[in-house]
């Protein structure tokens, strides 16, 4: 069972979305819960282990934002593509990645998903459709439109989802790409994870309107703003967008509001460094996407306490196995330095 460490009790929030919850099967809801928890426990392990200084790469954690990846990716098939950014662990896990190649990558090992060449900012999982993550803000957005274009040209059924932040929304690449996707009716879902900050700059310091989803209007495409901490809202938005994409309806822009609990990079919290107010964090912790949904599952009887314990236990052992695998794996041989610069 997932329990927030030393955090205030979660108040019940009877929301429209929860009423709608009854529409979704128990199996789906358990799947969504598990997907979120898998991301959370994986990243909490990173928080615990990072001080050992064996993971020698910057880590951008998405703790607090898990519902978006889980909700959107639940609508994607294995063959569908995903592009992501520097904060990509959650997207990768939600799209089906195993924990071992990820963890090994963070440890710089030869068994990592990128053979130790990428680190946490550059993860890939081709069998599950993750074609890479760019740590250049906005870099993944045009690429996602490109994979959607390729699917269309090649007559494939795949659609593409791209995850990016509220900061990436400011890059010219977003507008150029969205216009092209709209023009060509490409099967791509733009998922903007609006956690209100780019590094330490608040959205209001960077955008006058702060209406990300409204920008879709200019392209005559649907734009929705959802509560990104509500996994069912994320699921529903993803479902509509995926359906549209699969039916030649072109791109959708989903703005999902959320909050990153940890610092921009690393395992610490920002208020410790004076970057963001502590109260703001505490408010958002109350809206924990996992805590909220867990409460809902318990109240509706979809899961009971024992079932939660079982799910948590299973995920924890997956995490532990991944850590063991990563730590025991060999480093890449120095000869790997000059391999893969070019493809055969």
């Amino acid at each position, binding site marked *: 069972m997932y329990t927030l460490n030393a955090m205030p009790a979660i108040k019940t929030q009877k929301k429209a979305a929860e009423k709608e919850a009854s529409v979704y099967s128990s199996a789906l809801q358990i799947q969504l819960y598990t997907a979120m928890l898998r991301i959370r426990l994986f990243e909490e392990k990173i928080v615990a282990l990072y001080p050992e200084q064996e993971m020698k790469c910057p880590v951008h954690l998405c703790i607090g934002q898990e519902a978006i990846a889980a909700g959107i990716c639940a609508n994607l098939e294995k063959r569908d593509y995903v592009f992501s950014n520097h904060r990509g662990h959650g997207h990768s896990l939600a799209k089906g990645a195993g924990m071992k190649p990820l963890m090994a990558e963070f440890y710089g090992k030869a068994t*990592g998903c990128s053979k130790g060449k990428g680190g*946490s900012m550059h993860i890939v999982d081709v069998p599950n459709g993750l074609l890479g993550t760019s740590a250049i803000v906005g870099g993944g957005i045009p690429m996602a439109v490109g994979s959607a274009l390729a699917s269309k040209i090649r007559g494939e059924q795949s659609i593409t989802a791209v995850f990016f932040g509220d900061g990436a929304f400011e890059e010219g690449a977003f507008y150029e790409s969205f216009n092209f996707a709209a023009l060509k009716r490409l099967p791509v879902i733009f998922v903007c994870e609006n956690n209100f900050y*780019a590094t330490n700059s608040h959205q209001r310091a960077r955008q006058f309107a702060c209406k990300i989803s409204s920008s879709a209007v200019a392209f005559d495409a649907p734009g929705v703003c959802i509560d990104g901490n509500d996994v069912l809202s994320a699921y529903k938005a993803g479902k509509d967008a995926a359906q549209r994409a699969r039916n030649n309806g072109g791109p959708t822009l989903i703005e999902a509001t959320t909050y990153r609990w940890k610092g921009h990079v690393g395992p610490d919290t920002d208020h410790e460094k004076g970057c963001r107010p502590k109260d703001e964090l505490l408010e958002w912790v109350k809206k924990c996407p996992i805590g909220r949904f867990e409460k809902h599952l318990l109240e509706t009887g979809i899961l009971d306490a024992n079932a939660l314990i079982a799910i948590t236990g299973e995920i924890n052992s997956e995490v532990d196995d991944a850590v063991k695998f990563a730590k025991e794996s060999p480093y890449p041989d120095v000869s790997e330095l000059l391999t893969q610069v070019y493809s055969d």
Partner: protein
Amino acid sequence: MPWTKVYANKAEFEKISAEQKGLRGLTYREAILEATEQALTADKNVFVIGEGIDDPGGVFGTTKDLHLKFGADRVMDSPLAENGITGITVGAAVAGARPLLVHMRVDFLPLSLDQIINHAAKWHYMFGGAVRVPLTIRAIIGRGWGSAAQHSQSLQAMLLNIPGLKVVMPATPYDAKGLLYAAIFDNNPVIMIEHRWLYEHMGHVPAEPYKVEIGKGIVRRQGKDATIVAISLMVNEAIKAADELSKDGIEAEVIDIRSLKPLDSDLVIESVKKTGRLIVADTGWKDCGIGAEIITRVVEDAFESLRAPAVRVALPEAPTPASPALENAYYRGKNDIIAAVKKTLARS
């Protein structure tokens, strides 16, 4: 002059400081902050813009609290929009401002290349000198802790074959302050590339504003046996290499070229005429890099003075890997420079 010295270690710096009262020590980062602050004070046309420059860290301390001193109109945070913001600073420069644009990493500068190459570099020439672009762009090279391929690049080479641009890479706190101050008051676009690993380095820096001439290199260490031309962090590695070689009776001359464009090839040629041997140590890749340019100039203008083939010390031909096992093997330093010097000396 104490401030032309590169201190290979802290003890040496402290010794000189104790001996020569009245000298003031500053870190590289503080020197940049001071130049920026003094430029803002000296000219109200100067303004600073960059992503996160007003955050508590202040771009590793180099813009710290300036927004509090000069206000958000002159020291402003920027949306994430590198090419647009670059163009905005180019336009502001054309209209009479002296903008300083800060990129946390060199790697974000490629997004600005259209505005830098197609606009800033040409605007003066293309309009027959009617307008000018007094723009300064700072960009920082990252390294280590798995920074990996997109957060650790030394991209200076690609800026060097664009007429109209100036490119400087200071290695010392004194030069960081003086070159930045000179860049801000230069009437052309100047790109200053800093290495993050220099930020803690101490040096003696005068308190008053001053300029270091753009386009002039400097001999950091005299020697008769070989000439090592180095840039940025590699200057420190070259000094360490020269000190070690000296124990074997090899006296290397170390030139800190510090301004890559315009390039002070006269200084290099003068030295090579004396030593007959040339090594160039770069923070970036080899192909078409500063080494290629420096060696070519020597070959063009002083071929007969070379007594052995020149050697380049540069990064292996690959993007930066993340794994510590590969990262360690990737970077070049003192030992590689020593090996390069010995290689040129092995040829009689």
